[in-house]
């Protein structure tokens, strides 16, 4: 029996917000006032009078067979309303973004520490947690596979190997995590001479640790059982429709009965692209007939979402004595952890953009994604490009040193420009101002010496140095990244735009399913509607599955794709309104435009209130960017990406070389954004992305030992504080991409990519150490 669907406290309403600001303006956020008043409801703020709390029992082992599960002791706890295991999943028992390989609840085997095994619903969260602890799971513990190269059975560094990856048998039966073996994807790029030679060659191996998105709002949501036997799910997520597809599959319910609404999202950065508590809360709600809230605490959050893939990369760069790149060979391993998540697409990015924004005639790239028993890895801001940027930019510095050249000079000499061919053979058909980005950075003034104040020293008020042993370094890095979904993916968004007169005032309502995660898409939607329809009052409807898919809030794509959809829907509405005005006034449509709530032309001002009366004009349409194509499986050639974003950073650091402490003194960034739809928000993206890149360079890493996470807390997993982030200089370039709406480029990810490599380069310059691993830790600098 199901309870009637009701609306929880905190269910999102329409955002009306401030009434001004079109494309190109610093328009204010429509959710801003709610957020500063503490009235904006995030997923964890949802509440209903009779709701239950759901909790998850997770595997303590990275790899084990489940012999048996006894839920009896948990069910006996007073206040417990349901205890569920995989036997209670009515539909498909596995899900996944690209490959359905991840169990909703563990089926026979657990493949990573923290894998969900059972669920409990109770009337108090502590009761639920205490009951979950009483579930008895009998595990046969297996030895985990914890290294991507070993998982594939590759000898370490088999640069010679070509053709299909040969996954050799490991020594034990359990070494294959999945039936098809441990290879998720092998991407090859082959151009030019297969056996090139060069005057100068540098070869290095690089490692990037596992980074966490560390969004502040925990995974959370509320599932409410509905009268029709379905469920309403309010959830903090990145892509409502891909969630809906997976939830329907697990619940064996049609989409009409699984209705999702976006709850307030406290940051995402890729970590909400995969399901977390979504299906679990729905299962518990449908079983108990009660609303069920689930909200992870910070420790559980570290186990509850995918992370950025750690990478091991071997690069070989060959150049002429003059500094022209002759060839690059790269072998890149991404550790995907226990389940595929978005590993195939991460490998796609890592491989197809794996040598950076440079023109190189001979390229040989092998990029692998592997299954291991480490935590699953998937989407995080920068998606496959962050890891390789550390390697290729370090290589450019190493090559410059070998050649006795200035590192910026070497980069400029080999930089991509409009008309260049990427390593995929794709012609870069819009501005690619790599050289200008670097030259502008060089031209910016440098910060002065640190003042004689402990607070400006590495180590700060810990009083570790007054300047002795401190050396300054300056580093540069440039990177590029695809915007939107690639490799032939049918990437679209849906927008519904309605123009009507409400209370005498022309009002536009924009309805999309595009997730607002903090970046300000709701503001952009309003700005576009104001510009296209000449109406100030724009209402943003709640994001839900009552309108078609908007695609994911990821890949820096929403302003481009959902922005494009809103623009196109506005144009369709405008066309109908102007036709109507033409019929009324006898003036040709071509002379008419919408401005300030009226149809205007020379000598004409017809208020919309008068023209429309009680009628509404509404259009819903899907909008696609121009199609991309799959790359050739043997050569990696093809029109893989619709657009690229370019950014560059200069970092200035002071390093206490005796203690290995790093103080980042200043970050400078140049980025081409095509067109800044909201300049203030663009700057915010650059500042925030820069901080996350800095974090990976010097502090952020999920430490894994034998498949076990060592630091699942903000005590031990460090993200930059306000003390760690230096002042920034930012210059924004606006070279229009003729293929994109308003000429815009996606913004969010690029600054996250070039930031860290610049910091690393600066530390390297300060210390003279090669530094091939991030995050850089004090012991890497002191050799202790």
């Amino acid at each position, binding site marked *: 029996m199901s309870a009637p669907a009701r609306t929880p406290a*905190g269910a999102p309403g329409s955002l009306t917000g401030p009434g001004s600001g079109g494309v190109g303006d610093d328009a204010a956020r429509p959710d801003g006032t709610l957020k500063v008043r*503490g009235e904006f409801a995030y997923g964890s703020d949802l509440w209903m009078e009779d709701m239950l709390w759901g909790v998850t029992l997770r595997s303590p082992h990275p790899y084990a067979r489940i012999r048996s599960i006894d839920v009896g002791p948990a069910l006996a706890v007073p206040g417990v309303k349901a205890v569920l295991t995989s036997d209670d999943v009515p539909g498909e028992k596995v899900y996944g973004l690209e490959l359905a390989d991840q169990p909703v609840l563990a089926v026979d085997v657990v493949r990573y520490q923290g894998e969900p095994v059972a669920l409990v619903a109770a009337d108090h969260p*502590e009761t639920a947690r205490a009951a979950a602890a009483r579930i008895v799971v009998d595990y046969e513990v297996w030895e985990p596979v914890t290294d991507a190269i070993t998982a594939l059975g590759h000898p370490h560094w088999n640069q010679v190997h070509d053709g299909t990856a040969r996954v050799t048998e490991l020594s034990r039966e359990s070494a294959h995590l999945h039936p098809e073996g441990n290879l998720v994807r092998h991407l090859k790029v082959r151009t030019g001479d297969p056996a090139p030679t060069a005057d100068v060659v540098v070869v290095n191996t690089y490692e990037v640790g596992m980074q966490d998105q560390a969004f502040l709002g925990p995974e959370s949501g509320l599932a409410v059982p509905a009268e029709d036997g379905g469920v309403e799910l309010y959830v903090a997520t990145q892509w409502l429709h891909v969630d809906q597809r997976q939830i329907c599959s697990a619940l064996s319910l049609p989409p009409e009965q699984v209705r999702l609404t976006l709850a307030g999202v406290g940051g995402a950065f890729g970590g909400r692209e995969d399901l977390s508590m979504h299906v679990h809360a729905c299962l518990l709600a449908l079983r108990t007939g009660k609303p069920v809230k689930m909200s992870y605490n*910070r420790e559980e959050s570290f186990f509850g979402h995918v992370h950025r893939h750690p990478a091991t990369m071997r690069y070989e760069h060959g150049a002429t004595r003059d500094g022209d790149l002759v060839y690059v060979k790269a072998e890149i391993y991404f550790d995907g952890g226990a389940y595929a998540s978005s590993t195939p697409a991460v490998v796609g990015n890592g491989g197809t953009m794996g040598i950076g924004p440079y023109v190189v005639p001979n390229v040989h790239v092998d990029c692998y994604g592997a299954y291991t028993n480490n935590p699953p890895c998937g989407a995080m801001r920068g998606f496959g490009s962050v890891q390789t940027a550390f390697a290729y930019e370090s290589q450019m510095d190493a090559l410059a040193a070998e050649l006795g050249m200035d590192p910026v000079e070497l980069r400029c000499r080999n930089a991509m420009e409009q008309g260049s061919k990427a390593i995929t053979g794709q012609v870069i058909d819009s501005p690619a101002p790599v050289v200008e980005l670097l030259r502008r950075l060089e031209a910016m003034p440098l910060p002065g010496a640190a003042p004689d104040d402990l607070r400006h020293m590495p180590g700060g008020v810990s009083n570790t140095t007054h300047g002795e042993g401190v050396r300054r370094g300056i580093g540069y890095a440039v990177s590029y990244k695809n915007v939107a979904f690639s490799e032939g993916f049918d990437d679209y968004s849906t927008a519904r735009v309605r123009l009507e007169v409400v209370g005498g005032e022309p009002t536009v309502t924009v309805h999309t399913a595009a997730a607002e995660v903090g970046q300000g898409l709701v503001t952009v939607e309003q700005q576009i509607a104001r510009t296209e329809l000449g109406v100030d009052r724009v209402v943003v409807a709640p994001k839900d599955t009552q309108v078609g898919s908007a695609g994911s809030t990821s890949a820096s794509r929403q302003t481009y794709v959902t922005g494009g959809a809103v623009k196109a829907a506005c144009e369709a509405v405008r066309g109908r309104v102007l036709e109507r005005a033409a019929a009324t006034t006898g003036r040709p449509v071509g002379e008419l435009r919408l401005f300030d709530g009226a149809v205007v032309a020379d000598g004409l001002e017809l208020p919309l209130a008068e023209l429309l009366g009680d009628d509404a004009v509404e259009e819903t349409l899907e909008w696609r960017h121009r199609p991309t194509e799959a790359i050739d499986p043997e050569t990696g050639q093809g029109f893989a990406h619709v657009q690229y974003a370019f950014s560059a950073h200069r970092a200035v650091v002071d390093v206490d070389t005796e203690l290995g402490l790093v103080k980042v003194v200043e970050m400078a960034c140049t980025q081409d954004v095509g067109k800044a739809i909201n300049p203030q928000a663009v700057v915010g993206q650059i500042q925030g992305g820069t901080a996350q890149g800095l974090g990976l360079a010097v502090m952020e890493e999920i430490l894994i030992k034998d498949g076990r996470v060592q630091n699942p807390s903000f005590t031990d997993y460090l993200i930059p504080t306000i003390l760690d982030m230096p002042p920034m200089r930012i210059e924004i370039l606006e070279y229009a991409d003729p293929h994109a709406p308003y000429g815009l480029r996606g913004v969010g990810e690029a600054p996250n990519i070039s930031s860290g490599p610049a910091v690393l380069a600066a530390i390297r310059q300060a210390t003279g150490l090669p530094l091939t691993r991030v995050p850089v830790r004090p012991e890497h600098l002191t050799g202790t």
Partner: protein
Amino acid sequence: MRLTCTVNGTEQQVDDVWEGESLLYVLRERMGLPGSKNACEQGECGSCTVYLDGTPVCSCLVAAGQAEGREVGTVEGMATDEALHPVQQAFLDAGAVQCGFCTPGLLVATDDLVTRSLAAGAPPEDAEIREALAGNLCRCTGYEKILDAVKLAATRMSESAR
């Protein structure tokens, strides 16, 4: 147990509070005041910062029973129906709010800092701001606009105090 305390100037009484509950939990789940946030629940992130008898604390680290008979101030108590508090307005104007999950805690911490600084005769300098807000994590903004917001709030509060 029964808990009685004053929250944003109003006396609140709640029954059946389990002794293990934090002040944050009681505010959010029992008093209908979810403005204070639950980003880490271990005192590391500052998102749950509230005033307790005028001193900023991480409400996740305060046992609910410790608030008995005391005065609690949360983000919900900062604005009036008509107007935002100058710190709130400054955060909006400076673009210091993205996802906003850190915002309630930062608003309380900033209000405390600016109020103390102005009482001592000068708006806070950058290094003071960084030190005072070092316990408030933000993952979206890179903190630049938060610094801008604090300085803007200090300027406006200083002007309005004249």
